[in-house]
């Protein structure tokens, strides 16, 4: 009786290092120019070669501009150094790089599934906290630091402290207009940003099974906001159908062998988890955050909570600090709060389904006067597909900017940002202080809520938007 995590761990363990630590084979290493270049350079400086370069991939996503006509020059003051250093180091190490101008370029957690780099049952690491997204395909995928990345590159392994296990079972079905992003924020609000405390979280249950691969990627993406080691979902036909014929997915008879093996990747009946929580999908509503932690989320129809409503996961100091930062007072309705900007993008919500749903809200409507609205597709491939479907014209006609692929304004790195104290509704993952700009006030929500809010000029429920 084993969990899916235990099956993958056992298959990859080279040696038991004692005391709960294992030496695990690492099947895939992904890098980006923000934290990957420094790892490659440091490795080269130590005279250590990359052990298996064919299993390592790098992309440009974090500091590259997303304005049309972009090149190596960046709005971020020293961004070019990150791009050129990563390019040189990637070439030196003989690894595959999805560079600027490559149709496969994009946010690392968007392009890895697109290219079939992540596969069920593999171990995959990247010096990026949102690597947990890729557990959506049944991989054991987790974020690491740059030093750990050097270790994985040099040895093809990592020394890993075995995490405890936690199952989050989502029963029932999400209601109409309720998205995986809302589900993730609902779980964070209920159980706190520290709720998963280093566990590997398996998302299970009817509502999870019903999600597409893209929906699962969004749900798993926010596992790092839940303090999880990572998240994983047992792979099924939804995943196998998604992966078939992707560039790096196996082909022919090897594909058949792989699928047969992947079908064994589930938690056995009677497998024991260290913790378990149940979530009622029917109770999830469109969510929005009011504070400076992803746990500060409430249904869009609710008000800014009183302290006693959040006392389980906040001290009075953190609560009051968050309210002061956000310039909000308890009891204020979230819906109707005027916004300065709207952002659709990031590894959380920038894939085809996200853009299609947002475009459906925007079609035939205009962004409110005075609201700056930006859409940044997650990958060059998503951008091309969206343009083939005419979505770019919907975004542009409504008043949204339509950008090149990258992480863009999910975070402020000294270049582009939303202005001082601007209130932004955003499909990203972090509403931390000054995350999206100096003193910028971020409200996390689903892409369709961002779209509806951009139209209304205030936080708005897409289900209630007037025709």
């Amino acid at each position, binding site marked *: 009786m084993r969990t899916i995590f235990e099956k993958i761990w056992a298959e990859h363990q080279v040696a038991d290092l004692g005391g709960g630590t294992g030496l695990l084979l690492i099947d895939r290493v992904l890098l980006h120019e923000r934290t990957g270049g420094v790892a490659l350079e440091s490795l080269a400086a130590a005279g250590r070669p990359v052990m298996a370069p064919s299993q390592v991939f790098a992309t440009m996503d974090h500091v590259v501009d997303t304005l049309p006509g972009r090149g190596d020059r960046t709005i971020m003051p020293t961004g070019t150094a990150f791009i050129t250093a990563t390019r040189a180091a990637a070439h030196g190490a003989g690894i595959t790089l999805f560079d600027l101008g490559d149709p496969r370029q994009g946010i690392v957690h968007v392009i890895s599934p697109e290219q079939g780099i992540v596969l069920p049952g593999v171990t995959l690491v990247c010096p990026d906290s949102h690597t947990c997204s890729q557990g959506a395909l049944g991989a054991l995928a987790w974020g690491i630091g740059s030093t750990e990345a050097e270790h994985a590159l040099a040895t093809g392994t990592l020394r890993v402290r075995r995490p405890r296990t936690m199952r989050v079972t989502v029963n029932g079905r999400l209601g109409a207009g309720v998205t995986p992003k809302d589900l993730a924020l609902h779980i964070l609000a209920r159980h706190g940003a520290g709720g998963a405390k*280093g566990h590997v979280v398996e998302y299970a249950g009817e509502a999870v099974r019903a999600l597409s691969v893209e929906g699962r990627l969004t749900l798993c993406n926010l596992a790092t906001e839940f303090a999880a080691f990572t998240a994983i979902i047992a792979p099924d036909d939804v995943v196998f159908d998604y992966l078939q014929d992707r560039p790096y997915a196996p082909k022919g008879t090897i594909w058949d062998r792989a699928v047969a093996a992947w079908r064994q990747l589930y938690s056995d009946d009677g497998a024991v988890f260290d913790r378990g929580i149940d979530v009622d999908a029917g109770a999830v509503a469109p969510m929005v955050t009011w504070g400076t932690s992803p746990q500060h989320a409430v249904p869009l129809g609710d008000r800014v909570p009183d302290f006693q409503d959040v006392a389980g996961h906040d001290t009075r100091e953190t609560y009051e600090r968050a309210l002061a930062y956000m310039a909000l007072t308890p009891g204020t309705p979230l819906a109707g709060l005027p916004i300065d900007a709207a952002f659709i993008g990031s590894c959380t919500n920038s894939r085809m389904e996200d853009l299609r749903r947002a475009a459906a809200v925007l079609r035939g409507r205009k962004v409110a006067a005075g609201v700056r609205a930006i859409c940044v597709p997650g990958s060059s491939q998503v951008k091309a597909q969206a343009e083939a479907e005419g979505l770019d014209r919907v975004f542009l006609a409504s008043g949204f900017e339509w950008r090149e692929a990258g992480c863009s304004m999910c975070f402020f790195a000294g270049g582009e940002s939303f202005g001082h104290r601007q209130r932004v509704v955003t499909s990203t993952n972090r509403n931390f202080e000054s995350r999206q700009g100096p003193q910028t006030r971020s409200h996390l929500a689903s892409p369709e809520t961002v779209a509806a809010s951009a139209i209304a000029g205030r936080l708005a429920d897409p289900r209630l938007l007037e025709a």
Partner: protein
Amino acid sequence: MQPFTVLTAVALPLVRANIDTDAIIPSREMTSVSKKGLADGLFAGWRYRTVGGRDPNPDFVLNDPRYRGAAILLGGENFGCGSSREHAVWALAEYGFRAILAPSFNPIFRGNCVRNGIVPVELPQDAVAWIAVAVAEMPPAQLVTVDLEHQMVTAPDGGTHSFTIEPEAREMLLHGLDAIDLTLLRQAEIQGKRQMDKDCRPWVYL
């Protein structure tokens, strides 16, 4: 990596839940492809009056002269959450922090601490809060001791708190070991496992 056995030092209280790595070092402070030159950016958003400026905000604890030379940080629940940026740990280490006491750590941040010679000490919330109160009475005199060998923290009042840390991390920190060197000693074992695995899971090997 500098070995860590016992440290007695000034402790700086920042006991707030969910302190994220964007707060520890904002992305805008990570201006070069380097692990160095980051100490000035540590807690920049709280430490300075203006974004990108260096005019100290006197209200922030790091600028309180009573905590000068602090090498131990007292943190809150889920310390180091958010971005995996190891720059957060590089900045803390460069500033001079060698140990962090908190009720819990975000897992990636915790791993980064161990790889950079900073001891992540998990203590119950009450214990951290109590130590913070004791320290605040007179920071330069109310020192805290972290003894990694005996897995024991001694508070300024002499009270002791034992803590647990997995043997692997403890060994690495105690002896300042380089994990890559250690793992490369097992190269034959790793290659053997990979060869076997290639037959079982050929689709993994591109």
